[in-house]
């Protein structure tokens, strides 16, 4: 009895042992292949986004004749840093920059002030007309600014607000997209947390600010990033609403470089574009850290 059992075991073991390495090798090869494919895909994706950016930086450091050369060079013969100075000096850039900053952050602040309570109300309270109101808010998502700029222009003109920061900020003081995103996030928050806060005597605004908003941090960071980038880069609205330098933003200022210099000075233009992009990149890196951290936290919970 005992010997036969002892015999059986090695046979069984070799049987499995012979099968396993083959399967394991296949599995390992598949893993490696997948990993390589993954890396290739990511590299391609990086190229799609990074190449134009690299091209912009490269051009911003060339002389004008170099920008026209064919085939194009990636590395300029000698970097021309003065393009940046030229760009900066070609118009009232500090003013543009400040205007852009005021407008983008003004919009962001107002949006936070409006979307947080709005989303909170839509998520938490039952009131007559809630569905209808929310539907209306969602409907505005489908209206492009090009469709309504004329009446808004006339209205702002009536109010003598053209060529002021208000003309660029007020129309974007709230965001249907933000309300939608944030409401979803508020709906997912555990009801018990709110109830605990109510038992702790917290007034409604405090529940919103101290409990709900911090829990929605990833959503808020994501939204802030989108909002900041899109308004920082916005060309159409400031173009329509400004006729002088007093409220003009960077994208308009940069476009004017092209107009003023007879022939298009691509190198200077690109230098200006790099300067335009730097704050956006900074905003992105700042928000990215928050977004990742917030997601990691919520994952642990």
């Amino acid at each position, binding site marked *: 009895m005992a010997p036969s059992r002892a015999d059986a075991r090695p046979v069984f073991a070799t049987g499995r042992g012979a099968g396993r390495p083959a399967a394991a090798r296949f599995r390992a090869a598949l893993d490696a292949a997948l990993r390589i494919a993954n890396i290739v895909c990511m590299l391609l994706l990086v190229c799609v986004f990074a190449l134009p950016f690299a091209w912009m930086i490269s051009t911003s450091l060339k002389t004008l004749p170099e920008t026209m050369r064919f085939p194009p060079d990636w590395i300029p013969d000698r970097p021309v840093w003065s393009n940046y100075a030229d760009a900066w000096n070609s118009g009232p850039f500090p003013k543009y920059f400040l205007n852009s900053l005021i407008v983008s952050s003004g919009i962001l602040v107002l949006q936070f002030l409006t979307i947080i309570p709005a989303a909170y109300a839509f998520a938490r309270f039952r009131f007559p007309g809630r569905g209808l109101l929310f539907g209306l808010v969602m409907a505005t998502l489908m209206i492009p600014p090009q469709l309504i700029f004329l009446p808004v222009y006339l209205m702002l003109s009536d109010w003598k607000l053209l060529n002021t920061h208000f003309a660029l900020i007020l129309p974007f003081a709230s965001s249907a997209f933000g309300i939608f995103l944030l409401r979803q996030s508020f709906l997912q928050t555990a009801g*018990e947390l709110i*109830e*605990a806060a109510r*038992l702790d005597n917290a007034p409604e605004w*405090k529940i919103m600010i101290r409990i709900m908003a911090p*829990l929605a941090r990833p959503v808020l960071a994501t939204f802030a990033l989108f909002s900041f980038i899109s308004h920082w880069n916005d060309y159409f609205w400031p173009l329509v609403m400004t006729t002088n330098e007093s409220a003009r933003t960077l994208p308009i200022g940069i476009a004017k470089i092209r107009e003023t210099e007879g022939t298009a000075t691509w190198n200077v233009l690109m230098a200006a574009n790099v300067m335009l992009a730097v704050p956006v990149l900074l905003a992105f890196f700042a928000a990215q850290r928050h977004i990742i951290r917030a997601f990691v936290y919520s994952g642990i919970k």
Partner: protein
Amino acid sequence: MARIDLIDVVKQFKGETVIPKLNLTIREGSFTVLVGPSGCGKTTTLRMIAGLERQTSGDILIDGACVNDVEPGKRDVAMVFQNYALYPNMTVRENIEFGLKNRGVPRRERERLVRDICEIVDLTPYLDKKPQSLSGGQRQRVALARAMVKHPKVFILDEPLSNLDAKLRVHMRTELIELHRRLGATFVYVTHDQTEAMSMGDRIVVMHRGEIMQAAAPMELYDDPDNLFTARFIGTPPMNVLPMNLLPNLGTEGEGRAEYVGFRPEHARLLPGSADPPSDGLAIAGSIITRESLGAEHVYQLRTTAGTCFVKQFLRPYAGGDFATAVVPHDRLYFFDGEGRRLRNLRAASRPEPAAAGVR
């Protein structure tokens, strides 16, 4: 300290009645446990007391004052949630302080209160940590501290120990009892675990389908159940219940017609099948199908012609064969009518006829 009265309280959710009509008085300073199977309306009852849910009709009184229209924060009630519901973005200190801040307690006073409470529940080293970095037991303590620091009149605890492992749970039981003694506040505690209820409460309210089956002290529930539900819910293994019509040699005298007879496993004694049973008890013969030994006590499952029943023997295990007779003294029998109501005026009487086989 406060007394809570629920008067004719009805609760419906979208037309579905969860609590048909509840009348309950929770005595001032008591440790009252609501116990019942899952879904019987315990949490709903608690939430109505706390003011988180409004009753469909009826009144809730705290210290004699009707609180129907009083906000949860103003009822002087603190609640410990099953999942703790700690504010994840706040540190332990901020969690505990939040309620005090909202009441405008000055900073000095707050610091003193938080320090005192944290000493009681051993949280001092963790004051600046976030709840995520704490263990289950520590989170439980934070939840308790957050409730205690407000010195409420009423503590409401909804299955607070169900997320802890068994050992910690037993430990926290004693801590909670100790806490109740120290604070002297009214505790309303919910659990679905009858062992927990029996070991913690000084008054137990057994609920079933939104109705109170019995409200009494633990030993009273055990010794003198009002109905079949309570009798079977309290005690492990549960009370054995057999239909009277399968026990032809058991008679009754007194008012009422018994449909069921019950006895506790620990009140029965096992005799070897061949032994002569004493005449002043109910004797049921059967065969042993399982034997479970816990050291000092031994539980046997006996299959008889009247149904399966448990018998618990203490200290010395039953030494006989598989065929055995369970003997229960007549004064340890409980009688119930067809609706499961206890018939207290009925006494057992032997019927001498040697009627059916298998049952002696």
